């Protein structure tokens, strides 16, 4: 987590002031010559590393702060804990493998693929065991999907808490998965007619389980062994995980070793004690699987302040829905009074992140930035208060409300709530 910039003694704030001063200089016609041009830089003169210096490439040291971060006070222990994707540092819709947030319940299992098996049992004609090699003999497919933890933004139910979209929204990532349709594997075992549910189970020390309705299992669920073109990362379930598009991240069981087919849900710990949504009435909703339409502005945001001063500004953000594609994203610069439709750019895959932009001239006055996404099923992202009106503040999960960022005159950005 070393930041070469701060090592050199420059704080972000001092960089900021220089940057603002620099932009002021732009409007002055006669300016000093730029030493980045007039002086010979070390990389222009001496040779760099040869091809084998980084057999597995790593980012430039100047990008050293584009890392996952955790919030230590959230959990008792880093083994059953979570860290967050640095959304403010990312572009496009694909999350690099090393930056996909992590959530484990028993640490990262280091599984030997040669000793990994997938068992299908329960209400099937013939219980089967597959090796990794067997699984790769099924027809493969590639799909881009987001994975969002149901508790993403969970710390914000009661009010603005954490300063940075990495912490407020960073329990989401989006990669291209390579794997096999679960349907093919289940068909190989022969699903009995009274089968209504499946239960994936992990091989790690938490032996994670969730109940999934058979319709979903036979629709778009996958068993994936690769992400973004390479084998799954250990922290994402190497060598095998189940992909449950658009649904709570917790259901995407990692280190997948078994799928049981049954006629009733199991009501295990992660669908009773956890991942149920307590309402103000004291009743709790269960089996709330879909991740609703949501968006967040990733820049400007608290960790990505405006450093160039007033003038042309690019607002950039992410939108997604577990129910389909994103049809539209509106943005507001005044806390939700007036909205303009942003530009959604790049590929639009179902149940995947979408990138949006809005270019505007900043007059240097404070802004209250918001984004509001609408998905292909017509679901509209609600305000925080609209959501609290129906759910109270103790749901923990499924907070898909509109985020407000307060941009101050100096370009610094803060997480706020507005009324």
């Amino acid at each position, binding site marked *: 987590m070393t930041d070469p910039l*701060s090592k050199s003694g420059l704080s972000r704030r001092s960089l900021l002031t220089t940057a603002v001063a620099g932009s002021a200089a732009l409007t002055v016609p006669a300016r000093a010559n730029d030493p980045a041009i007039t002086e010979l830089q070390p990389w222009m003169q001496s040779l760099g590393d040869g091809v084998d210096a980084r057999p597995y490439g790593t980012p430039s040291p100047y990008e050293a*702060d584009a890392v996952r971060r*955790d*919030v230590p006070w959230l959990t*008792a*222990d*880093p*083994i059953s804990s979570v860290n967050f994707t640095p959304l403010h540092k990312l572009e496009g819709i694909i999350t690099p493998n090393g930056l996909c947030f992590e959530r484990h319940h*028993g640490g990262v299992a280091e599984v030997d693929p040669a000793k990994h098996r997938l*068992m299908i*049992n*329960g209400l099937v004609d013939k219980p*089967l*065991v*597959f090796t990794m090699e*067997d699984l790769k003999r099924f*027809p*493969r*497919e590639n799909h881009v999907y987001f994975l969002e933890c149901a508790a993403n933004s969970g710390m914000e139910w009661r009010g*603005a*808490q*954490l*300063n*940075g979209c990495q912490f407020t929204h960073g329990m989401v990532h989006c990669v291209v998965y390579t794997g096999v349709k679960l349907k093919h594997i289940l068909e*190989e075992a022969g699903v009995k007619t009274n089968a209504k549910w499946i*239960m994936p*189970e992990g091989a790690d*020390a*938490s032996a994670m389980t969730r109940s999934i309705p058979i319709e979903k299992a036979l*629709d*778009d669920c996958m068993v994936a062994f690769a992400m973004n073109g390479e084998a799954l990362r250990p922290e994402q379930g190497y060598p095998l995980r189940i992909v449950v598009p658009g649904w709570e991240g917790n259901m995407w069981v990692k280190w997948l070793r*078994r799928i049981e087919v049954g006629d009733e849900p*199991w*009501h*295990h710990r992660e669908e*009773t*004690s956890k991942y149920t949504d*307590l309402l*103000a*009435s004291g009743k*709790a909703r269960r*089996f*709330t699987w*879909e991740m609703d339409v949501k968006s967040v502005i990733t820049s400007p945001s*608290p960790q990505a302040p405006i450093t160039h001063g007033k003038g042309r500004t690019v607002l950039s953000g992410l939108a997604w829905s577990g129910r389909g594609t994103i049809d539209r994203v509106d943005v507001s610069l005044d806390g*939700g*009074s*007036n*909205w303009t439709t942003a530009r959604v750019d790049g590929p639009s895959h179902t149940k995947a992140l979408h990138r949006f932009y809005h270019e505007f001239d900043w007059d240097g006055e404070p802004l*209250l930035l918001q984004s*509001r996404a*609408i998905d292909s099923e017509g679901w*509209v992202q609600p305000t925080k208060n*609209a959501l609290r009106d*129906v759910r109270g503040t*103790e749901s923990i999960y499924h907070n898909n409300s509109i985020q407000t960022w307060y941009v101050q005159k100096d370009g610094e950005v*803060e*997480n*706020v*709530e507005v009324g």
Partner: protein
Amino acid sequence: MLKSVDLSLLPLPAAPLLPLPPGEGRGEGIATRTTLTRPSSKARGLFTALATLLLTTPALANDLGRPATPAEIAAWDIDIRPDGQGLPEGGGTPADGEPIYNDRCASCHGVFGEGEGRWPVLTGGDGTLQDDRPVKTIGSYWPYASTVWDYIHRAMPFGDAQSLSDDEVYALTAYVLYMNDIIDDEDFELTRETFGEIEMPNEGGFIADERPDTMTLAKGEPCMSDCTDGPVKITMRAAVLDVTPQTEATTDEGETVMVAAAAPAFDAGLAEKGKKVFKKCGACHQVGEKAKNRTGPLLNGVIGKEAGAVEKFRYSKAMKKAAAEGLIWNAETLGWYLEAPRTYMKGTKMSFKGLSDEDDRAAVIEYLKQFE
């Protein structure tokens, strides 16, 4: 690796020819698309012929995987359902469970299930579900007792999963339910047969998904202009709470311990690194003034001391034997143990895969030196 490979010797990959099996309704997989569009026009004739042939032939051979044996299924099929499906033979009472709980669970969950520090609370919270700060526990929230059995058996104690016998899990489940006033009689034997008698207070507290409960286009277009009563005001700022972690690794004042008082050979910088490495140990071991035995023994003063010497901790036979043979923990011996616990000490109950990085081992040992 690649250096030694003569590229001319690499076999050319065979063109993928198999389309998806028929009946692949929603298959918008790239596999289909690439295989069907890529071949040159010459190859296409043959390819289409092959594809038609395959499409008219029944599905590909149904020969992947192999049958699971009954013993394999028994080894992995450990799940329990509310109707009791999956519960094994055996049984246990709250009275049987108490000593096991105190020994293997209380260090994290508290003697009364109240939760030590921020470890999960297992008891209490009755009637708080509508409160401002509801306390969701087995007693106040969980709908089914089967979940308690299933979870303890599959995941607890944390760091030593699936080490409990079925009787122990029955006894612990009974004891946890007893602490929650769900079982009143400490001699009530929980078995597969008596499981159905347990009534969980909040079983009726769950309802189905009621969404959409917020706005959809079916209810109208969202407002685009003058949507608020005049200009909006800031009502709350995250900066006031100031709970966001700093980007820079900060030293957490409460824990910077006795660096000055340490022996001259002590390397504070290395110890600081060791503090991070110790996060891997923290699930099982505590250090410092309030340290207690958890899954592993407390580690105050462990450097320079005989192995297996912490009072009240139940060591494995292997550790007791090593202690009897005079094992002393120093940088060298502990380094070996931490590198590969079960290779160095066959039979140790430290279920930790080891620290393969020598620097990490040195750092964590340096860190441990500060605790008397």
